[in-house]
């Protein structure tokens, strides 16, 4: 299994798109802290979530990584053979599909886990540097929960791509939902049940002051989001196992 995970790490980190995801995810949040610092100071904002909210911007990184680790298997390898895909080489090398998926999942969790820790440390650290004593360092548990949120969101992107077998749909859906118009957030205005949608409920693991329609305890929020991801992963895995490559 170690060699399979190593191969998946080689594959993922060798992709230019994945490197973009790594860079954006790691650098965007600290950058936002820097750029926003004067405005935050003027407004006298020193909420309990300062630093953790900015981490949300970097989520584009885990989303790209989660999508591209699967979608790269399904893109055509060349104009000469439009039906040829990397997946053929992958399954010839590792025909046991569940072992392959386990290795892929482990590689993604590793990369996004490290990325989340680096990004969180940089963002929280920079927040302290910029705002000093006026903000408290969030409790370790909340930072860890934010990192877990990154990993779970990457796994959500990964599972959706396993189902769609194409990167464009999930990437568009997830990026639009997390940046331009958050459909899941708007839904919370219509029904409070939307507070249990995976991206909304997950944020309650580490954010305190935001505008949530229903208050959910951090551990409960974590469990609900994990259950969502497990369900998506199960559907993705069953389809991947059953479908012709």
């Amino acid at each position, binding site marked *: 299994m170690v*060699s*399979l995970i*190593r*191969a*998946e790490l*080689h*594959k993922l980190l*060798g*992709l*230019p*798109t994945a490197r973009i995801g790594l860079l954006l995810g790691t650098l965007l949040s600290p950058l936002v802290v820097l750029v926003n610092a004067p405005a935050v100071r003027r407004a006298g904002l020193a909420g309990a979530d300062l630093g953790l909210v900015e981490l949300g911007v970097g989520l584009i990184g885990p989303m790209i990584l989660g999508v591209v680790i699967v979608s*790269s298997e399904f*893109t055509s*390898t*060349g104009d*000469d*053979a439009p*039906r*040829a*895909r*990397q997946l*053929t*080489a*992958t*399954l*010839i*090398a*590792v*025909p*046991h*599909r569940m072992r392959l998926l386990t290795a892929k999942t482990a590689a993604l969790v590793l990369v996004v886990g490290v990325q989340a820790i680096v990004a969180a440390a940089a963002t929280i650290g920079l927040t302290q540097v910029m705002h000093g004593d006026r903000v408290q360092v969030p409790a370790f548990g909340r930072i860890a929960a934010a990192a877990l949120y990154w990993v779970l969101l990457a796994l959500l992107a990964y599972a959706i791509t396993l189902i769609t077998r194409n990167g464009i749909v999930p990437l568009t859906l997830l990026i639009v939902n997390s940046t331009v118009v958050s459909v899941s957030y708007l839904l919370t205005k219509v029904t409070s049940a939307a507070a249990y949608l995976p991206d909304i409920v997950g944020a309650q693991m580490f954010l305190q002051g935001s505008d949530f329609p229903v208050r959910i305890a951090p551990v409960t929020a974590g469990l609900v989001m994990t259950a969502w991801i497990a369900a998506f992963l199960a559907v993705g895995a069953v389809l991947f196992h059953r479908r*012709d*490559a």
Partner: protein
Amino acid sequence: MITVERVNKIKGKTPILYDVSFVARPGRVTGFLGPNGAGKTSTLRILLGLDRPQSGVALVCGRPYSGIDRPLTTVGALLDGSGAHRARSARAHLRWVAASNGLPGSRVDEVLEIVGLAGEARKRAGRFSLGMSRRLGLAAALLGDPEVLVLDEPVNGLDPAGIRWMRDFLRERAARGHTVLLSSHLMGELAETADDVVVIAKGRIVTQGVLADVVGDHRTLEDAFFALTEGGGPW
């Protein structure tokens, strides 16, 4: 040894393989011959566990492909294209393939040398010509120095020198006792390379046996092929 037994496959609602059965033996080059769309690639994909048949079994060395641990050390396979993501260099592609089967990184440069791509190791697969892609695909197939080779249209896109090289290479492999199964729609080429021939048309095996027996009284393999497939049989 490759054994395919009574394999049936339906794609969508269309049956594409009917009771396909044949064997490919060690020490021999077995040519899998048929026109485009006859079911050659579909059969090889089932043999390699990429697609699932509705019924029947396909075994390599007595086992289904998906049950072989570190399969590249037993079977080398070449299907459509190189299998390399177009943004990856030839070496980067082979490195992950080698890593997945616990093969040493040094093997990557060896196979690049064998297929004549050592000078192109850092070039991106997306910039490869058709012939170079085939060579890269073959390099991946050779990584584990396997005793069985399964090659789908291996000479497609190769220049005359490449075709000659491939022919010698496959003959030499068979001479070492390896099992070589290659599909082709090029009858002249296959007649030059194969010891045994399996002929498929419209999803059914029409005949199989030693090349000379399949050709029989016909002048060439091509004549035999058309006589066999245009006889107004069940297809």
